[in-house]
């Protein structure tokens, strides 16, 4: 509506003479005399619309397939009643039923059923039957009149008018009452079968009344109420009602419906959208577990969510046995007692999440797998379903757009499938990874409209990410970002950039990840919305992660704080949990490990029971484990990692990089518990499982595999060193040596991944084979790094690390002088500080090296400089709590004590 038109309408009357004037308004209102009272009295009269069986009909309350419900007045007593009447008389007015005789006799039966059921049920929360007269051949049910609202509307009003705790308790109590009422029916062998909000009215005193037993049937009774395989209201029915197996319908069908009722009342949303096409709707009811979203958490405690999810189990055998058992558990929840639905351990939650997540986000992967199996139909469905589900949380128009996209995608994959068929016919078996590759290739070679190409790239990027090919995923995201340009809005561009940053981060390219995350933040500049805040939170979180992995604690913490701030602005609990966990890593980088561990645990507590993408949930668990490990709480760490693995194995599979990463950390926890053999065996198995970079066709995949292998071998080396059995040191040298080789396989790898391992290698070599071998190895490595990376800061830092090591060896003063004179050290220290930051742990390495060099000098000016530098380093190490303190202190411990 144009604003101009509205303004005109609210202006004083136009001269065109339309009766919008003050005179008319005064006449209407007539508040100057007592005429208004007459008017009010007239308005208050019920509009009598007819009579039936001696009752005065006031209005039609509802019309349904089974009959019409009227509000009526019993003239003798003046009391209001509800009258339900068969449609028989009215049918003639409409087009008429196709088979009138059959319809009437069927409805008669239903009617008789309802009459007898209601007559049998006397309960304060079930509508009472007053009489069942006949009128002109039509059968009537005269029931008590209930002044109330449908359960959903009532619940919405409760939420908006009462405090959270009060509202929650009020609604759960009403659910208990409703369930108890239904359980009375169950006790005498009757199922309602059509429980939905409009059939449970809530009146004064928040007392619910169950209506409409028109579909009720007795267990095992010949089902008079069934027509064409289905009876009930589609969006409120249980899987077994859809399947048209009457024998499958019993009290647990009502339990499911009560679960849906509870879900609707507590979240404000129907679990299943009744406006969906019936096929889609049924498919969801069969397979999709209703999700409790982040925003529901404010209303629905996770215990209660578990109760509801139990009621909503697809398999009736897993639900409460009847409404009474559900009511009992709801009462336990109200009493603060542990609910029966509560799992024996936390794994249940993870499993529930897995189940939900599996259908929601890895559908695409499933699609590719289905494709591999030649299942074209299931492929097309999976894509459609994934797209549609993703859009479900969004608005209807977005769903429509998603559907169109899904159609286009399906078209594309249909073509792809044809290609695959040819391949398969030629006898080449296809694996999921190959299919993705083929998908990428066919995208490169085909003429694809830009919009579709964007969709496809986005999908492929997601799939590649899902299967752990981070380099491949990053490449697709890069193309997507290039294609987007000005064609799409900031949120979509930001989303792609965030995906790119995440893929790069996991693909061991922190520096480039940082760039992408920063770009995402820049793209969002000026966007004001919760969605934008959510994206900002993710982007800042990635900045923080990237800064953390480059050892830039302060910058990481600042970014993590921003992430947390925007997470809170977006109001989404999962975002907040993510930001907390990222912040924990930043705190850790600053050496504040206790605070870090606490933040990581808070993140897990916040997220537990939330609807979080499983990848993210497992990240939170993993981080909490990692920090428990760092704070030497090995038992706790082990428990966290076991839980993480439970999720990751199911979610990603055994050989996924993230699963393996957790396996590595778990080995370290075992080591902390002095279960050395288990730890070492685990790492050896992992090293074998991860394979060699040479196995990969693409350089990017090879690089990511090398990064993983480096990590495993490094930890294997240190674990062997710690165990210290016969031959372990030699094995450790071997492992460190292989790890160092891996570093050269990862272009652009951060040098900090090399320094520690290289240092360990040289140190062990010195111990095992003598200093000369160690020095040779150090020099060789230095030369290789200089030629391989060509970056001054890499050689500078490595020189600093080796320099210290060699300078500390009493005999090696000459070697030291030949390697790095004072001027070289000074240069290196400057380069390191410039590159890694003046207060970074790397800068400390550089300065310490310079200090050692200066102290070995005989020149007075250099000796004086050494004294001042030593004082500065000492102050740094004491002041720098919160700024790399832990790493600095660790380094200090390994140095000669300062006088």
């Amino acid at each position, binding site marked *: *509506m144009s604003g101009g038109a509205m303004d005109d309408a609210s202006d004083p009357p136009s001269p065109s003479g339309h009766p*919008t004037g003050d005179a008319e308004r005064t006449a209407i209102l007539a*508040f100057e005399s007592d005429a208004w*009272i007459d008017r009010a009295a007239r*308005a208050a009269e019920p509009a009598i619309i007819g009579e039936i069986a001696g009752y005065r009909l006031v209005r*039609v309350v509802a019309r349904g397939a089974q009959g019409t419900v009227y509000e009526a007045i019993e003239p003798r007593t003046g009391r209001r009643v509800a009258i339900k009447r068969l449609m028989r008389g009215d049918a003639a007015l409409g087009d008429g039923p196709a088979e009138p005789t059959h319809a009437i006799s069927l409805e008669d039966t239903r009617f008789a059923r309802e009459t007898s059921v209601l007559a049998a049920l006397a309960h304060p929360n079930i509508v009472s039957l007053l009489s069942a007269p006949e009128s002109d051949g039509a059968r009537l049910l005269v029931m008590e009149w209930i002044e109330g609202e449908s359960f959903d509307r009532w619940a919405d009003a409760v939420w908006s008018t009462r405090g959270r705790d009060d509202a929650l308790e009020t609604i759960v109590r009403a659910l208990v009452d409703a369930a108890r009422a239904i359980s009375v029916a169950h006790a005498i062998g009757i199922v309602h079968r059509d429980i939905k909000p409009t059939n449970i009215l809530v009146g004064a005193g928040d007392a619910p009344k169950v209506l409409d037993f028109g579909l009720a049937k007795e267990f095992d009774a010949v089902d008079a109420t069934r027509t064409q395989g289905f009876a009930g209201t589609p969006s409120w029915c249980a899987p077994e009602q859809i399947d048209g197996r009457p024998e499958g319908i019993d009290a647990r069908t009502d339990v499911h419906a009560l679960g849906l009722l509870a879900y609707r009342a507590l979240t404000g949303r129907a679990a299943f959208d009744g406006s969906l096409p019936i096929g889609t709707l049924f498919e969801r009811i069969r397979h999709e577990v209703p999700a409790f979203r982040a925003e529901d958490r404010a209303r629905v405690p996770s215990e209660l969510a578990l109760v509801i999810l139990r009621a909503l189990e697809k398999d009736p055998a897993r639900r409460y046995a009847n409404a009474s058992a559900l009511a009992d558990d709801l009462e336990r929840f109200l009493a603060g007692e542990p609910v029966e639905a509560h799992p024996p351990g936390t794994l249940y939650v993870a499993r529930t999440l897995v189940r939900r997540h599996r259908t929601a986000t890895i559908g695409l992967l499933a699609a590719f797998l289905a494709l591999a199996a030649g299942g074209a139909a299931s492929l097309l469905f999976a894509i459609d379903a994934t797209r549609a589900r993703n859009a479900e949380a969004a608005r209807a128009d977005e769903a429509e757009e998603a559907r169109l996209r899904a159609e286009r995608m399906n078209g594309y994959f249909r073509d792809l499938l044809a290609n695959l068929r040819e391949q398969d016919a030629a006898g080449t078996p296809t694996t999921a990874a190959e299919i993705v590759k083929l998908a990428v290739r066919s995208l490169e070679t085909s003429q694809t409209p830009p919009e579709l190409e964007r969709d496809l790239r986005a999908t492929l990027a997601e799939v590649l990410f899902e299967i752990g090919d981070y380099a491949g995923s990053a490449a697709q995201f890069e193309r997507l970002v290039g294609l987007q340009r000005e064609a799409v809005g900031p949120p979509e561009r930001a989303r792609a950039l965030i995906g790119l940053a995440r893929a790069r981060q996991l693909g061991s390219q922190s520096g480039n990840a940082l760039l992408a995350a920063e770009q995402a933040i820049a793209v969002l500049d000026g966007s004001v919305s919760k969605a934008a805040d959510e994206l900002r939170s993710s982007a800042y979180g990635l900045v923080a992660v990237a800064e953390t992995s480059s050892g830039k604690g302060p910058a990481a913490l600042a970014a993590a704080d921003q992430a947390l701030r925007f997470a809170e602005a977006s109001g989404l609990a999962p975002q907040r949990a993510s930001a907390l966990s990222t912040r924990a890593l930043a705190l850790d980088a600053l050496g504040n490990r206790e605070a870090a561990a606490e933040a990581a645990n808070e993140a897990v507590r916040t997220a537990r029971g939330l609807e979080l993408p499983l990848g993210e949930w497992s990240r939170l668990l993993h981080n909490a484990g990692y920090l428990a490990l760092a704070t030497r709480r090995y038992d706790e760490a082990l428990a966290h990692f076991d839980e993480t693995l439970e999720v990751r194995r199911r979610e990603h599979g055994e050989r996924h990089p993230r699963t393996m990463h957790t396996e590595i950390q778990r080995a370290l926890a075992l080591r902390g518990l002095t279960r050395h053999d288990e730890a070492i065996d685990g790492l050896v198995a992992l090293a074998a499982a991860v394979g060699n970079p040479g196995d990969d066709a693409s350089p990017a995949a090879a690089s990511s595999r090398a990064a993983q292998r480096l990590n495993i071998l490094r930890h294997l080396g240190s674990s062997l060193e710690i165990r210290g059995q016969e031959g372990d040191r030699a094995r450790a040298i071997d492992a460190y040596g292989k790890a160092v080789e891996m570093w050269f396989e990862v272009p652009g790898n951060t040098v900090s991944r090399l320094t520690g391992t290289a240092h360990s290698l040289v140190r062990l070599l010195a111990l095992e084979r003598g200093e000369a071998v160690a020095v040779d190895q150090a020099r060789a490595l230095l030369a290789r790094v200089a030629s391989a990376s060509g970056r001054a800061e890499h050689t500078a830092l490595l020189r600093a690390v080796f320099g210290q090591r060699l300078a500390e060896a009493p005999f090696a003063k000459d070697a030291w002088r030949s390697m790095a004179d004072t001027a070289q050290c000074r240069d290196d220290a400057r380069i390191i500080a410039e590159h890694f930051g003046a207060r970074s742990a790397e800068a400390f390495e550089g300065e310490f090296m310079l200090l050692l060099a200066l102290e070995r000098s005989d020149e007075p000016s250099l000796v004086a400089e050494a004294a001042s530098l030593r004082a500065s380093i000492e102050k740094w190490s004491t002041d720098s709590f919160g700024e790399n303190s832990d790493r600095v202190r660790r380094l200090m411990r390994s140095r000669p004590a300062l006088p």
Partner: protein
Amino acid sequence: MTIPPTQLTLIARLQDPKDQEAWQRFEARYRELVVRFSTRQGLQPTDAEDVAQTVFGALFRAMPRFTLDAAKGRFRSYLFRVVRNEISRVRARESRPAGAAAALPIVEGVVAGGDARRAQVAELSERAFEEEWINHHYRIAMAEIRRTFAPESVAIFERLMRGEPVEAIARDCATSTQAVHKVKQRIRDKMKALVEQQIAEEA
């Protein structure tokens, strides 16, 4: 129901077919008016419900394009035209089948047969609609007053509506005539404010 200021744009909000809350409120507010007017026109309750169903469906489709513009009349007139057309359509449909013992065919206010009550209410004029419309707004306001005033005040008002003298009410309720007047005045002020507000919201 307390009316938030945003409801001033209830009709305007109907421009957005996705604004479900606006549509629900709109239907909750006007459905009874349409049904009552239709039954006053002699339609069977079921047909009146059909009329309402069709009318709201038509409005749902038409409102996004609807502009309130003085030259075309106001929302109420627009609603009336839609309702009148639909009632005529239902009557025309029912005059066809021979066996239909339903409402009588009424065209242009001329009753083709039937009882006196139907004849009285046959007038399909905008004036009758206005009358129903005013009643309707009173009824909505009354419901709100019943909800928000003390039961004693409502009881006094019920008796005033039945035309009982103030003195008698005061005596029966063991209160002063002043108090009764006071209740009447308070309810009148509230009613006036509510009805004015409701009508303003149609603009």
